[in-house]
């Protein structure tokens, strides 16, 4: 019996020892992953003893930072309104948005265990990781200022990598005042909380003709001359050219240059729904765009009636695109037909600026062959050189572009679009400008694009 008691004693002791070993294992190998689970409410609640990481632009300029004060930790947005949509806000009551929400885990955790331990021993404050962006602070500020007083968006991409250099959306809001202005912000009819650049869906209008042109080229219909009488009757639905102007016998190049509706409708009807729909999907409409910010899915409905096909051939009807997607379309043409995945976070680094994770450019897909891209590029140069997009000219640089004037229902003014890239011969940056109810693309959007492109090309 004494032996049995001894056995039981050792069983108990070894069980206790095993739990202790498990606890050690748990604290060393499992706790980090478990603690950073998004369901762990401590991530938010314990902000008072974690110094949230900073957010920096591509040149290392600080855009958002946290610092310790007597009352706890306070977050400061250095350019609050300029980056309000991209960076977002972080509020205990209203949750968080933008990068503050998507990168909460990284901003709230220290990657360096020793740093973690050291700061814990010292003063219970942990410094979170920093997020480095592809955005250029000066370009973002410049583009936003050009939109002042308007509703709209400007997106600038690097054509060969997909890095987002600017993502401006107006109207904006002050992320540091979110608690006080919440009610008025969500009730504001101008929807200042909406990131128009990546989440706003608009009829693309004539900028969609770039995709239709691509389909025309792929189907070898570019040599057909189309007679433009100034209006088209599609099953009783009459669509006019701008100001009812008749372009006469016209080719693809000229049709794009003058943005001739009749040409694209007639060619679109020839291509039919399946060709148009497939081309739209190839351009990533109806598809989720993989990126590190919140993006709405652009829309191209599959319609077989002539009336819808006619409308969709000129980017009207129920076709919808985000300004970011429009910029991606231009960038793909500039990049010899390869569409790159857009991204805004280039790397994550520790509080001591040691790079922990780097994000490399990624291809989405080749959406057209190089020859097609070259052909469209040449036509786009014509658009800016002597077509509808002359307002986008930049001195000493050849700009390629396409304007859009998207009609909206009701008596409101059209949405003004411009997409393009520069320099046309060796593209560096692509752009999309959208002005809600801004009127003509050539008169309203193109001049803004011209200024932003000039500024973007002047940057290193």
């Amino acid at each position: 019996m004494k032996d049995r008691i001894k056995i039981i004693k050792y069983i108990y002791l070894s069980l206790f020892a095993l739990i202790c070993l498990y606890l050690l294992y748990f604290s060393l190998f499992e706790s980090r992953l478990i603690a950073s689970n998004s369901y762990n409410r401590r991530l938010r609640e314990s902000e008072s003893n974690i110094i949230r990481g900073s957010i920096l632009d591509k040149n290392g300029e600080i855009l958002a930072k946290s610092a310790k004060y007597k009352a706890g930790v306070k977050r400061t947005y250095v350019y609050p309104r300029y980056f309000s949509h991209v960076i977002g806000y972080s509020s205990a009551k209203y949750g968080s948005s933008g990068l503050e929400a998507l990168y909460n885990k990284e901003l709230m955790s220290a990657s360096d265990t020793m740093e973690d331990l050291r700061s814990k021993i010292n003063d219970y404050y942990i410094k979170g990781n920093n997020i480095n962006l592809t955005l250029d602070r000066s370009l973002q500020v410049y583009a936003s200022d050009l939109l002042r007083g308007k509703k709209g968006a400007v997106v600038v991409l690097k054509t060969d990598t997909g890095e987002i250099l600017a993502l401006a959306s107006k109207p904006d809001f002050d992320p540091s005042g979110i608690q006080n202005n919440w009610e008025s912000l969500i009730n504001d009819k101008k929807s200042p909380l909406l990131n128009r650049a990546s989440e706003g869906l608009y009829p693309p209008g004539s900028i969609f003709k770039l995709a239709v042109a691509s389909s025309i080229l792929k189907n070898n219909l570019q040599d057909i001359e189309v007679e433009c009488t100034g209006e088209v009757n599609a099953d009783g639905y009459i669509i006019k050219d701008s100001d009812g102007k008749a372009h006469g016998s016209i080719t693809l190049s000229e049709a794009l240059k003058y943005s001739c509706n009749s040409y694209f409708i007639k060619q679109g009807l020839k291509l039919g729904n399946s060709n148009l729909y497939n081309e739209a999907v190839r351009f990533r409409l109806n598809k989720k765009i993989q990126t590190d910010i919140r993006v709405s899915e652009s829309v191209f409905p599959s319609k077989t009636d002539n009336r819808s096909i006619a409308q969709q051939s000129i980017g009207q009807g129920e076709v919808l695109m985000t300004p970011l997607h429009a910029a991606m379309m231009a960038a793909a043409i500039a990049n010899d037909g390869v569409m790159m995945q857009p991204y805004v976070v280039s790397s994550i680094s520790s509080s001591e600026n040691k790079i922990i994770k780097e994000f490399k450019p990624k291809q989405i897909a080749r959406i057209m062959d190089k020859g097609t891209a070259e052909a469209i590029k040449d036509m786009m140069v014509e658009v800016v050189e002597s077509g509808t997009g002359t307002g986008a000219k930049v001195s000493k640089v050849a700009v390629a572009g396409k304007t859009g004037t998207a009609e909206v229902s009701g008596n409101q003014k059209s949405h003004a679009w411009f997409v393009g890239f520069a320099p046309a011969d060796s593209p560096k940056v692509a752009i999309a400008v959208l002005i809600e109810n801004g009127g003509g693309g050539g008169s309203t959007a193109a001049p803004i694009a011209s200024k932003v492109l000039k500024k973007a090309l002047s940057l290193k």
Partner: protein
Amino acid sequence: MLNLVLIAMNFALISYYSEPLDYMALYIGGSLAAAYMISRMILAKLLNGGNFLLFDVVCNMLQTGLAMLYRLSPEYGTKQAYIAAAGILGFFASFIFMKRFEIKHKHHLLLGGSILALLLTTQIWGIEINGSKNWINLYFTNVQPSEFIKLIFVFFTACLLSQEPSRKRFAGIAASMLTIVAFFVLQRDIGSAFLFFTVYLVMLFSRDVKGFYTAASAGAAIGGAFISYFAFSYIRSRVLAWINPWKYISGKSYQITQSLFAVATGGFIGTGLYLGDPKFIPAVHTDFIFSALCEETGILNGISLLAMYALLSIIGMDISSKCSNPIYSSAALGLTSLTAIQTLVIVCGVLNIIPITGVTLPFVSYGGSSLLSQFMNVGILYYISSNPELQYNTDKASQASEAESLMPHTTSR
């Protein structure tokens, strides 16, 4: 050894309680220290001869629990302090009771009868709190009869096992165990069902030379567990929550995942008292106090607390093996196993090593019935260790010399 424990304990008391400038906390700390010293003096002067370390270890756990409880909720902490006072009285009361009444084999009918009576009372008049129908409303307070049944149960089983097990006797024992466990399962108190049966198994194992009856009982238990899994949805839900806690994170696994978050966030050295968020865990002051402790005082403190329970197990097992009376030796084994197994069950439960069952962490969790019963448990153990008539003659000399060696330390304090 003893001195070290004492110093560590006093030091811990001071550092814990002097930190918040809360007079109630200081008052509780002071009273606890005073109660501890007075109790130690009574033990040394009047009830000499027992194992002092037992009381020291228990008080160490108590002060850890009181500090944590007071931090979680001053209201619960204060209540628990009163219960602790009653517990210390219970310690002495059970000592005196044991001194007056010698338990013999013939008492097994009385013991068994009282267990049945208490179980029936709970079954008929019991009220449901936190999903288990194992409480009785006594107008001024609610009590959990199962906590006190534990003590009677250990003596009941010890009496039954004091005679050489035969097939016929074993059938009687098995029938009694089955009845008791069935009551707990019906009352949805799966923790008690498991605890009672395992304690019985351990006690049987120490007596069952061939191991046949132990194996048979264990086999029956595994079979019973399988049947219960399919028969009772509340058991199934616990098991599912255990197997994949992250899948049911906002549903049935909410408690356990919150507990894991707490331990994970605390890490090795913890966030520091008042610097964590243990209140996110439901039932944090009872079943999940170990997680709160790990979050704020670190896994390091969790391990040292576990070491205390290991120490308590060693002491209890030594008391059992030194005891010459088969009933009392068995009882000491059972009483120690109660504490040890209950600790293992709840600590493994909150760490998701096994499915969670609602039992308290001995001497640390909030709970009147459970703390009182645990103090009575060690009171009885102390009695067994202090009564020379219950010790082996050969061990008497060494026991006495050990007691003597302890004396200078206690007086020099």
